[in-house]
């Protein structure tokens, strides 16, 4: 019996080292928490540049005031090497803590790099054992470095600021969507589809190197960046751009349901209407060897933000619904034409055909010959707190 007790004690003691997870224990204050990663390349030198934006653990609510003003919320480390693998070793020439990438929130790629190829980057991100690939990827117009070294007001950590803006855009507009994560990029590229990623653009060059200066400046725009437009990717390569207007129709056709307010023209008068997608159906059929794609969209309208004109009767409502439906159809066709012209397949027709008619021998040709019809059914469902906008009184009569 004593032997048995001794043996079990020994086993318990042997298990003790496990509790500290052995050789892999890391203290919080030995980690460099990465919040944003930026990748760039230098084609002349054939090198790769990676920027790691690391959260300053001392900044935050209980800020310790540094002598020159507020502490920076993040520090940007820049590393240049011949390959991504090398960066993992080289970074410690500059970085005093263990690089911890599990919780980074945004990946930025410079436009120049995106136009060459992002396949290596996708592989690099997917390879890392701790890094997650389910984070949004954005393209930066122009040089990457100033964006990686820009402070953002209100949301102090730039990656938080970008993520929060994307979230707001997804809800309150059709300018961005959820499926812009690295995983989405990889999946769509593997399926030879196209994907549109948002573009970050700097507003002006008057940026400040001090967080305190940004925080004390009333002009939030000075030296900041905005999310605007989209970069079209095909086969891991950026092949073109969409402007904000095209982004709206792209996202609508992709099935996104953000509430977007846009100025339409009803009976020759401008009317700003809020609209969002209720449901979308895509049908593929074949007519004499030619694919016919029919897209039906139910769209809900609201006059909550309409200050110009609110219909008063059923006839007027019908008229408005009809004109808005036609306008949306027209814009969607325009996008389809553009997509076909540039061979982008933004509407995912090839993918639809491949799923619905997998046995067809030549989907590429079929897609080019496809007849696409888009039908929009817009319905006015909601009103704002104004029944009728105030008219011009004409001198108080």
């Amino acid at each position, binding site marked *: 019996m004593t032997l048995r007790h001794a*043996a*079990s004690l020994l*086993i318990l003691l*042997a*298990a003790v*080292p*496990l509790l500290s*997870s*052995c*050789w*892999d224990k890391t203290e919080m204050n030995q980690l460099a928490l990465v919040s944003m990663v930026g990748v760039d390349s230098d084609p002349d030198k054939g090198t790769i540049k990676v920027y790691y934006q690391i959260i300053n653990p001392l900044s935050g609510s209980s800020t310790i005031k540094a002598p020159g003003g507020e502490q920076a919320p993040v520090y940007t480390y820049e590393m240049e090497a011949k390959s991504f693998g090398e960066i993992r070793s080289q970074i410690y020439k500059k970085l005093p803590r263990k690089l911890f990438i*599990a*919780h980074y929130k945004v990946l930025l790629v410079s436009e120049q790099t995106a136009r060459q190829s992002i396949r290596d980057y996708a592989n690099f991100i*997917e390879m890392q*054992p701790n890094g*997650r*690939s*389910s984070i949004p990827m954005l393209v930066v117009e122009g040089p990457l470095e100033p964006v990686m070294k820009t402070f953002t007001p209100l949301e102090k950590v730039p990656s938080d600021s970008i993520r929060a803006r994307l979230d707001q855009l997804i809800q309150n507009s059709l300018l961005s969507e959820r499926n812009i994560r690295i*995983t989405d990029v*990889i*999946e769509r590229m*593997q*399926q030879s589809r196209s994907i549109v990623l948002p573009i970050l653009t700097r507003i002006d060059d008057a940026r400040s190197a001090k967080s305190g200066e940004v925080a004390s400046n009333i002009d939030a725009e000075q030296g900041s960046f905005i999310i605007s437009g989209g970069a079209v990717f095909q086969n891991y390569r950026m092949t073109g751009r969409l402007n904000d207007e095209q982004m709206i129709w792209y996202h609508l056709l992709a099935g996104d349901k953000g509430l977007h307010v846009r100025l339409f023209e009803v009976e020759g008068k401008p009317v700003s209407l809020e609209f969002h997608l209720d449901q979308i159906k895509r049908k593929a059929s074949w007519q004499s060897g030619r694919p016919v794609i029919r897209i039906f969209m139910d769209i809900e309208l609201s006059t909550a933000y309409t200050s110009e004109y609110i219909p008063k009767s059923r006839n007027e409502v019908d008229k408005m619904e009809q004109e808005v439906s036609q306008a949306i159809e027209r814009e969607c066709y325009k996008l389809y034409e553009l997509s076909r012209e540039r061979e982008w397949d933004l509407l995912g027709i090839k993918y639809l055909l*491949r*799923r*619905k008619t*997998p*046995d067809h021998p030549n989907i590429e040709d079929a897609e080019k010959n496809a007849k696409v019809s888009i039908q929009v059914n817009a319905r006015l469902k909601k009103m704002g707190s104004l029944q009728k906008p105030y008219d011009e009184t004409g001198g108080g009569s």
Partner: protein
Amino acid sequence: MISRFQFYLLTINFIIGTTPFVMLQGLIAIGKQDAWIWPLLTGGAGVLAGMFWLLLFRHYPGKNLAQIPLEAMGRFPGAIVSFLFFVYFCNLSGWILRNLSDFLNGTIMPATPAIVFHIMFLLVACYTVAQGAECVVRLNQIVTPLLFFPFWIVFLLATVNWNWERFEPVLHLNPVVLFQHPAFFGFPFLETISLTMLFPFVQQGPGRPFLLGILTAAVSLSILVFVIIGLLGADRASQLTYPVYTAIQEVAIGEALVNIHSVISVILLVLIFIKFLVLVYGISETLQQVVRPRTRWPHFLSLMILLTAIAHSMYENPIQNAQWSEEYSIYYNTFFTIVIPALLLVATWIKRAYQKRQN
């Protein structure tokens, strides 16, 4: 004694064991969006294999796999066959240990030496097995709900990334392709022969819970493959090393729940441990039957040394492992699990026929 239900649970957990680590990506690479059918087919083959073993065991009620050769072929030739099973079990357990340390080194604990995982696992496993078969089975019964519910709840949470389009075109698979890759018939279902070591303990006969367990495990694996395809898509799932882990790693529910993949790590760890326990039990029981030692602890000590060594030298890198599994494992598994039992069955028939003629 072991109840039928306990044995049923053990069969399921044994089969699932290491499968999520080593089989899924290859399976999805071949079957693409229809890969989920494949576990059902191989499971069906597994049931057939199970019925075949039951045919053998019907001749020897109350005996386990190590005792049957001794009885069918006599003491000396029988000992050689039993020893072959000993080798088979040892290799399998070494393999499992290695799969485990590969997984842990590749995901959460890259700096810890693999041998630490091996020794820690072996210590606990030997201790459990020394307590007897009931201990193994009861342990499994206790942990099963703790594995089942967290596992599927975590996958339910993961459905935020679900996309039905990933299954289209549905059932667009050339069945011939599947039969060109017979490796999946061997693993994991043929390995269930290890469970026959516990047959004598099962009350009211092991047959029905055993076959039902194989079926349930096949359905579970099919569901798991289905879920992985829905979450990751066939294109990504077939190229990742640990798709189960990655699928969960990508789940982020709001701002707070972002690290739930550790749940999956622990569950997979326990599942592997259960498979490992059954094999270590098989090893020690085979030794017991063949050499009939008076004290057992020296055996356990030497087993620990042997298995760590096997785990260490099993293969040099996962690429070798993958190639072996793909090209040779089916022959290896078939030899131990179909050919030898068939020989035993033939020996039994000859012996019975001879005895009849004597009478």
